[in-house]
């Protein structure tokens, strides 16, 4: 149980640091305008996000390292991980269906944007991304804890 708690703390710390990294360019640029750190962070996240200014959240007039949707996903995942000890949910359906359910609103938001009848908005990007993130956090965290327990004991406690 101690290992599970430690693994949970590591996961929570990693998720918090990741979210802090997303916001860090805004804070660093506000405190030290000439610092190179924000450029490094933007370059790092440019591999996984388009970082369009018009689709990004801003703090102190500086954009986040990722777009609104990605920011919502990461914040939602952190929230999901935080909720794991509180929500001891019994899974109502298979995990693959839960993943599909989580990704469906976000995929619909992206795909419908290609049609002339619908345009994504800040609210839709944050809501669908946040929903996906929370579900992802709730699904990934227990599996990660399970995996750590399995690796530390060199067997899966659930399989024995």
């Amino acid at each position, binding site marked *: 149980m101690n290992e599970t*708690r430690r693994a949970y703390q590591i996961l929570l710390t990693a998720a918090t640091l990741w979210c802090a990294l997303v916001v860090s360019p805004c804070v660093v640029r506000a405190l030290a305008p000439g610092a190179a750190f924000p450029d490094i962070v933007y370059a*790092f996240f440019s591999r996984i996000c388009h970082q369009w200014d018009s689709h990004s959240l801003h703090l102190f007039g500086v954009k986040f390292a990722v777009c609104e949707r990605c920011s919502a996903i990461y914040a939602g995942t952190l929230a999901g991980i935080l909720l794991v000890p509180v929500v001891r949910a019994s899974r109502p359906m298979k995990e693959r269906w839960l993943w599909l359910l989580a990704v469906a609103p976000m995929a619909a938001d992206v795909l419908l944007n290609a049609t002339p009848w619908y345009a994504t908005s800040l609210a839709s990007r944050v809501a669908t991304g946040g929903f996906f993130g929370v579900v992802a956090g709730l699904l990934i965290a227990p599996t990660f804890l399970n995996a750590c327990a399995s690796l530390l004991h060199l067997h899966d406690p659930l399989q024995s």
Partner: protein
Amino acid sequence: MNQQPDKFIPALYGGIIMGLLSAIPFVNLINCFCCAGVILGGVAAVYFYRSSFTPDMPPFTSGDCLLVGLLAGFIGAFVGTALSLLVSAILGDLMREFAQNVLLHSNLPLPDDIRAKLEEAFQEKSKPGAMIIVTYVFALIIDMIFGLIGGLIGYGIFKPKVDAMPPMPKPF
């Protein structure tokens, strides 16, 4: 019971998928969707890992899947970076001109900042050696993190039926 199968080959397949999805022009835009290409590579590695099991082997664990995803990410970063260099060496100008014509000279209602970002990307010259190393290090970190997540998602999707919820830490 027989021992579990080797993790390297499934991770190699997953890593190659990851690398292809990260390096092929336009296809690599999938990674703008929260690194979906890399996650998909991790899930694929777990799928191949599961396929290599025979009935007389002990079932795979979430720990195995975590390691397979992590290894796939490690391989994917190498394959992706190498393929990106190859693709830009062979097709660099062709792809750039094509994309430039399609996106910038079309009547698409692109916001100004997006148009500026695209123009900046099209004017980007080939990367010097130091930048390639930095790119590889970034790819390594990102691919290993998201490969690991892909491995965990893969376990959730393909796990053996005998399972239960793991013990949760008590609320603080």
